[in-house]
């Protein structure tokens, strides 16, 4: 069976500074895969490469077996990959509802996610429906970003550091919601620095270092082996 998403030897650079040196990875349908690694190892660049926001210089990105390398981002999004970026910025001048409505209108795919459905997932957003996005708290913005991405009915969700900069209590709530999404069968590729957050979610882990995959294996291996964890991720 072909993987839902596959990266083969992807090299990406910003101008002359190379960031990815041949990253290969696979995500199977229904899986939650985590990219772990410290700041600046290429997690975000990997996601940007998948989305077509930064086109890889070399290598191939396969989506359901089809080569999507070099596709413009809006087509990648329409093909079923939803991206929740690190800066988690919503459209500040639009209200919560308008943010969701815009995403729904441009969504090329129909599926289970409607505005009502994401309100059920994040009830807080229903209360904030008429509030401009710029007036939401960090946690609420993160919920709205995920909700907005779900409006596109993606098959794969790319979550870039969802827990970054959020209070621990908010992180726990978020974790619980993402677990729910995972249980509903959504495929997730997660980038994280926080080991606790990612190991709670992930089935498999890729540890990135200096733009290449240093380790790959089941999340349980890292969870159970403190020495390995220390070796790969100690600061």
């Amino acid at each position, binding site marked *: 069976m072909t993987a839902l998403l596959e990266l083969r030897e992807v090299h990406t650079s910003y101008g002359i500074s190379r960031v990815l040196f041949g990253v290969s990875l696979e995500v199977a349908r229904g899986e939650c895969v985590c990219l772990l690694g410290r700041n600046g190892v290429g997690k975000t660049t990997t996601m940007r490469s998948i989305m077509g926001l930064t086109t890889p210089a070399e290598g191939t990105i396969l989506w359901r077996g089809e080569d999507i390398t070099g596709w413009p981002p809006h087509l990648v999004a329409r093909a079923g990959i939803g*991206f929740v970026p690190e800066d988690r910025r919503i459209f500040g*001048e639009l209200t919560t509802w308008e943010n969701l409505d*815009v995403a729904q209108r*441009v969504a090329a795919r129909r599926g289970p996610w409607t505005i009502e459905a994401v309100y059920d997932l994040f009830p807080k957003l229903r209360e904030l429906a*008429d509030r401009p996005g710029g007036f939401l708290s960090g946690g609420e913005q993160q919920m709205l970003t995920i909700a907005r991405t779900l409006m596109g009915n993606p098959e794969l969700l790319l979550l870039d550091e969802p827990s970054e900069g959020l209070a621990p209590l908010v992180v726990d709530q978020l974790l619980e919601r993402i677990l729910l999404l995972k249980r509903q069968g959504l495929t997730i590729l997660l980038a994280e620095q926080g080991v606790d957050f990612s190991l709670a979610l992930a089935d498999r882990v890729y540890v990135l270092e200096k733009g290449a995959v240093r380790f790959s294996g089941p999340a349980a291996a890292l969870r159970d082996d403190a020495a390995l964890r220390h070796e790969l991720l100690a600061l």
Partner: protein
Amino acid sequence: MTRRVPWTLLVALTLLVVPFLGSRFYTFVATDIVILALFATSLNLLLGFTGLVTFGHAAYFGIGAYTCALLMKELGVPFLLAWLAGGAMAAFFAAVFGFFCVRLTKIYFAMLTLAFAQIVWAVCFKWNDVTGGEQGLPNVPYPDLEWMDAVPLLADFRVGDKFFFVALVLVACCFAALRRIVDSPFGRILTVIRDNPERAQFIGINVRLYELAAFVVAGFFAGLSGALFGIFNRGVFPDFAYWTKSAEPLIMTLLGGMGHFWGPAVGAAALIILNQQITSYTEYWPFVLGLVLMILLFAFPGGIVGTLAGARWRLRRRPVTLPKPASDPVSRNA
């Protein structure tokens, strides 16, 4: 949701009074303002709502003016048809030029719009057989307004006053249409693109396509205002498409405030009235204009409407503390 005030209707009804003041001059200034307000507002669809800076909006103003004038003068096409054709022709060229422009971003986009506008100007300037070249097209006829004699109250007006009524009603319709466009889901997508084009892309928006659509709509309304202006001016000249003409709606929009639908219209009124007043005192109008712009950009970057709205916002602010008053053009200027 805020109460809906039918501003377009209110403003149009108020302006209907102008010809009754009996001054040929007031009507002249009011017609000028009404037509150029549409020009500036069409530009603001790009500048304020989509975040596209264009230096070549006069191209569509000029194309609309020439098209309408040629149809009426040479072919005797009825005014309304010629007027709409002016808009349609401008929209067509906006689609052709825009196709290339939206492939570039920021300053490159702006410079390419300027380049196309200069080509339009050069064609108008040199194509003697059709556009009259440097001499332009003088004596563009007024539309047939005799039917107004049958309308009570309007019968005794001068033709300039009658044309003002026509221009006012047509521009009001355009404003109503633009308002609907801005408030529609399409308008919201434009806002999203202005806010962050990259983010717009990965939620699945074809940014270039929407930018092109905005460009065509803006070109259409610029063409309609140019068509009216050609008749008002009693002639169409290559200047209509010259780059200084592109600067006019930019200045109006900055003056009035690009963060608001009504900003450019207020800016058009302010600029034209200011120009009329200042030039009656001094020949150094450009000097005064420069000073006004400097003060504006440093002290009131939200323009007239932005500053007023900011003041109102502060006065009405409730003691409820909201986390972050960011990314709203009103509060940013407050």
